[in-house]
């Protein structure tokens, strides 16, 4: 077993374990922390796949940004020591059914699909240069339009968050 393969199995185990723990833990803050582990594990996968830039983004934006935001909100809305009741049985059953049948179906389909390997294609080095150029590229495989659009989205989301939170001036 080579190192990458070992790393993969390790990361996979971490990701899946903490995924399950995220949804299973009865303490909210722990859930969030487990999610953080999942995200970090994911970024490990990205490194493994040679997408260093994205791995970085994953850690900074996702793990560093969103999860922190979530943790803040948890602290704001509930007590740290708060422990949930066990989930209602019907919900548990619904969830497990979906988990079993859904992943069963999807895996069945995916694993049976003969993904064509295209040996002629060489690995394209993913350097920052290329990413930068494509991110602001105007032509095909250029992403300036989504880039601009997501800025609109973020602005709009900000406004939306504001009007929800905004209080009437006395």
């Amino acid at each position: 077993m080579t190192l990458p393969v070992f790393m993969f199995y390790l990361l996979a185990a971490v990701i899946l374990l903490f995924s399950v723990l995220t949804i299973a833990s009865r303490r909210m803050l722990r859930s969030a922390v487990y999610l953080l582990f999942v995200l970090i594990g994911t970024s490990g996968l990205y490194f493994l796949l040679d997408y260093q830039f994205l791995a970085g983004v994953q850690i900074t934006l996702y793990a560093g940004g969103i999860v922190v935001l979530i943790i803040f909100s948890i602290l704001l809305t509930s007590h740290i020591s708060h422990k949930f009741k066990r989930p209602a049985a019907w919900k548990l059953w619904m969830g497990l059914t979906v988990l079993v049948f859904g992943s069963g179906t999807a895996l069945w389909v995916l694993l049976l699909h003969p993904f064509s390997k295209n040996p002629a294609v060489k690995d394209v080095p993913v350097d920052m240069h290329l990413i930068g150029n494509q991110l602001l590229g105007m032509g095909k495989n250029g992403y300036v339009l989504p880039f601009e659009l997501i800025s609109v989205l973020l602005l709009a989301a900000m406004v939306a968050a504001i009007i929800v939170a905004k209080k009437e001036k006395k």
Partner: protein
Amino acid sequence: MIQGLSIYHFLVVSTLMFFIGIAGFIIRQNLITILLSVELILNSVAINFLVFNRFLYPDQLQGHFFSLFIIGIAAAEASVAIALIINIYRRIHNINADNVNEMKF
């Protein structure tokens, strides 16, 4: 390409993560933990895109960028959702999913 690892290895991980996220969405009582499940879902999809990109179509970075933007959208989604959840909290001092069922039938 990583020797000894096929695309299927990665897809199994991401798929399981996806459905764990969905199960979490259904099972958890707390709105914020539901949001955590959503993050799991989005994350798993991001893995999907990257894996396909790396293993099958490495000459372009379409999957890569898709993942990148998914992270951005997840951020936007999370921020609005958190705002709304806090809004609920301010109203009923509780963010249990069981308590947001005033409207039905």
